[in-house]
């Protein structure tokens, strides 16, 4: 816990919390929302296709959307680390934050597995029941991660 207390008192963390600048906390928070939109937006389109929406388009042609999933993820990893640093001691001890991290980890595993299952070269043109289960899991876990993230502000 000493580490989190130190982190919270670094110059950068103090600036994020205390600065009146629009570029401090508000912009980092907004970047986190833009990343969320890219990540969950692109992931939902992939998931919906695997679940049968737009059957006229072969699954493989949606492969380009994964770059938005990863771009959104890295934006949120960086902005999330900055937001965490600013309240490190509190967040490190908050069960709702741990739940959010676990849900994100689960959603990432589902996303990686569904890509391997449904987007492998020479794979079947239509998604397997496995791939569809990963798609449902991914949708549910991203929605749950968003919920946990929001509730972090209310359930301390």
């Amino acid at each position, binding site marked *: 816990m000493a580490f989190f207390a130190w982190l919270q008192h670094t110059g950068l963390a103090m600036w994020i919390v205390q600065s009146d600048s*629009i570029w401090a906390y508000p912009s980092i928070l907004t970047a986190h*929302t833009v990343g*969320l939109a890219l990540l969950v937006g692109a992931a939902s389109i992939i998931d919906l296709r695997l679940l049968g929406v737009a059957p006229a388009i072969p699954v493989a042609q949606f492969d*380009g959307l994964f770059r938005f999933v990863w771009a959104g993820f890295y934006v949120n990893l960086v902005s999330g680390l900055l937001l965490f640093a600013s309240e490190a001691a509190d967040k490190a001890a908050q069960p709702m934050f741990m739940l959010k991290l676990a849900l994100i980890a689960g959603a990432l595993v589902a996303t990686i597995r569904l890509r391997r299952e449904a987007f492998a070269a020479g794979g079947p043109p239509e998604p397997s029941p496995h791939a569809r289960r990963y798609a449902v899991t991914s949708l549910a876990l*991203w929605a749950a991660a968003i919920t946990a993230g929001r509730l972090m502000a209310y359930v301390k």
Partner: protein
Amino acid sequence: MNDAVVWLSTTWLSSHMRDLKWMWPTCETLHFIGLSLLIGGAGVFDLRLMGFMRRLPIAALKAFMPYAIAGFAINLTTGVAFFVMMPAQYAFSITWYAKLFFIIVAGLNAMLFETTLGSRVLTLGADEDTPMSFKIVGAVSLFSWFAVLYCGRMLPYLGTGN
């Protein structure tokens, strides 16, 4: 306007919604899920209109539109709920009016597309580039939706007059 804001915030509906402790966090959560659906569905269509991701045939991409529209409907409903609960936070915020402005731009842009250019979508195959008119419509839509997101998230911090 002051009177209208005071009146709304003292109505039975407004005060009872505020009294329900779970109402605000629930609406917020739904608002974030709705924005993901909206930006996901509209974004992929806009990028294709702009000429990116040409492997995706435009006409068939319209199958995702009901999900984008559902996301918008969720956010309109929860957005109205926010306003009913805390009218002063919005009615006196320049950022909120900017948000409404960009929602109207995105809506008119989509209507313009549907009524004048939309039928040309059907003649475009996969791998085909889009005409300049499509690129402009796609760029205006994508910019407007991210501007809506930006204004919404910045609302507590920007243009509140504090």
